[in-house]
């Protein structure tokens, strides 16, 4: 007997490769989106800092904009630099 697969339609869910489940700022799941967004994924991406912490991009930008003097990671208080 031989079985020939012509096509296989599978189901998968996508997830961010991050070391945490929720965004430390908005407390929403990374796989969801930040409170201001409607659609997850491409429209509400994650960004990583050099300190290895990651956030919704919109969340961390808002945070950084609100900082007057120096820009720190809200989790570890190190200076925030985007990971290249």
């Amino acid at each position, binding site marked *: 007997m031989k079985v020939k697969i012509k096509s296989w339609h599978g189901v998968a869910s996508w997830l961010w490769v991050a070391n945490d489940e929720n965004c430390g700022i908005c407390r929403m799941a990374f796989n969801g989106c930040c409170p201001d967004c409607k659609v*997850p994924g491409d429209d509400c991406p994650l960004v990583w800092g050099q300190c290895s912490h990651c956030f919704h991009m919109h969340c961390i930008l808002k945070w950084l904009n609100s900082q007057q003097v120096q820009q720190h990671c809200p989790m570890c208080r190190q200076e925030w630099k985007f990971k290249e």
Partner: protein
Amino acid sequence: MAVRPLGGGECSHLMWKCHALSGSFFKAFCVKNLPLVVVSQALAPEPADVPLEEDLHAAVEVLRAHGLHSALEEWFLEVLQMDLQTRISPEFWSGVSQCENTAEEAQSSLLMLDAFSLLWRRLEPYLRSLALMEGWTQEGLLLGTGAQPLRAKVHSLLRAVLFFSTPHGFGEMVRQFYGRSFKIYMWRKRSRESRTSEGESGMSEDHQAESEEEEEGLGVPPRTGSQCAGCGCQRERCWCLTAVEHFQQLNSILQRLNLLELVSADAVTSILHQMIEERMERRCQGEYERSFLSEFHEWIEKVIGWLSQVFLQSDSGTSPSPEANRTFKRWRCHVQMFFYRQYASMRIEELFSIIRDFPESKPAVEDLKYCLERTSQRQQLLSSLKSALETRLLHPGVSTSDIITLYISAIKALRELDPSMVILEVACEPIRKYLRTREDTVRQIVAGLTGEAEGSSDLASELSKADPVTLENGQESEDDASDPEDWVPDPVDADPGKLSSKRRSSDIISLLVSIYGSKDLINEYRNLLADRLLHQFSYSTEREIRNVELMKLRFGEAQMHYCEVMLKDMADSRRINANIRDEEQKLPEEERPLFDLTATILSSEFWPPLKEEKLELPEEIKEAMEAYSKKYEKLKAMRTLNWKPHLGLVNLEVELADRTLALSVSSVHAAIILHFQSKEVWTLEELSEVLKVPETPLRRKMTLWVQQGVLREEPPGTFTVIEEQQKDRAEKVVLIDSDEEGDSATASQADQKEEELQVFWAYIQAMLTNLESLSLERIHSMLKLFVMTGPMVTEPDLQELQGFLQKKVRDQQLTYTGGVYRLPKSGT
């Protein structure tokens, strides 16, 4: 004696007075040679020598001169009463009993008339005297009889003495008499009408149908048979005309004696009621598709024509008295009212069926509305409809979708019937309550909304109606509602706690949705949508997009957000697949994958929780998925895929020695058959081991292949490939377990609930560790005390908790003895 014209004391006083004055009294009369003329002449059966009015007048003057005029009226009444009691009444009743003994109708009708004519002859002189005396009273010759005029006294005397006791059959006789005249009247009227219409344009179809029906009702076909439809006798002996004459004479006698209503009211009422009821039953019972009101109005006008013969003697030519006019008016109202009541009652009885047939039965609803406005039968309607609903609809034998369909037509019909929506609200409360107890209600409503439900497309079309009322801000502010002039108060049975504007804005969907609240509904819709998207792998989502857009208009953007993301996932998946396909096309031939792997990629946060099932796919598939994931990761930085191996659709070809099968199967089925490539014989146990699927569900999945004739189970528990089809075996029928509850990709409601309760499990364990044993109620109340409930965690109800704990007992995580739960002793 029911009524005496004079009190006893007064009477004896009078007698005494008469005695005292008798000498001069008689002298006076003797002189004038008019001894008690008023009386004696009146008493004489032969009114041959009626005294002249002047003579009588003179006699009264004499009496007046002697101061006796005050006794005259009382004495008149006495004499009348005596005469009635001793002579007139027995005579009359013996006449009546005579006609009672006559079998033939025409004969008895004549005898009855005779009896009444005799009565009239006897009483006529009295009435003449009465008129005279009334004249004298007006002239001031007599004193009058106080508050009650003499005429009224005479009338009540007549009524009291004559009809003090009526023989048993009298009412029946009168009824027969009037019934006959009614029939004759109606028949003659009809034949006259049909003759005129024949003369004009030939008989219209309607008319023909009508008269046919009517004749049927009377049981006598007049044209063809030898009997007259009016009197029911042989044609040659038809006595219709005589009957009409009798009828008119009797009515005028009764009218003159002021006995008309007393004698005929019962008979007329019962005839009319019977006729109306019969006609209604014959004509409109079970017939909802046309309005009967105007037809009945016409008919009732005819009936009223007959009534006018009774009460106005309209054919006699004299103009009726105002009193007769009043009576007639009263009767007219009565007949119309009776008709409305009767019609409304009938329609109320049938309301359930009317609702069931609604758009077709609209005329019946409008009729009923018209009648209800005139009668006060709302309460009757409510209770009757409620009980009809309960006995005919709200029982386990009716499917939920039928209940919903009926509820929808009830909304439509009752909206028509009562624009204030109060009837709808009150009568349909039981339906709503009942629907809440059905598990599949939400699913059915959602199915209806998306046009899935078989049969009714009502909801779907309602959904796509333009300008829907959004549910969130459905009630507009009070002031801009409408012109204050048009304001109508709520009916008395309205629930004062609810705003009328809210009630009035009710449209079908919001009413249905409010059974549960939109949150449940949206959740259910989401589940349904997820199911649909995961089962059709074609990415064609136009219909779903349309539905979601329509529902967004109803329920607001926010509610439908999740569904939108789900649909977007489908579109994104298509794009990603196309991308990856393009990549593959660029690869050299040999590096291309063995088969075409496409994927539906979900944003897990936005989909309802999917059923978690374990399934270990064959290596080659896993590798392909791995490769796909790699490409995805390249496409979307920092993201990866989590495959759901148990979901999916596989197109495959099974090549056997003598045949090839092309099939579309689920991934589990595919995984099973793939394993048979490497090894021809597998036991269930082995397969279960490899696939990591428990044996019971696995066996169920195997049946597909057994049924397709690819595998055979022999001995039980061992499956072998059938390379070459054996003719004799092919006929073996394998019953498939059609109970494919695995069909739904989303976790069932019960599973989700259990998931929710799992939150409490840690608390329960802690409680039992500290307190050893607890009853169900204690656990429940302690949970209520200590566990914070938020938007995500809702308080469990007692039954759910019990179910959950029972399951834990079955899983041996708890023990239940003597009404208390304990943790099982560790180590044992």
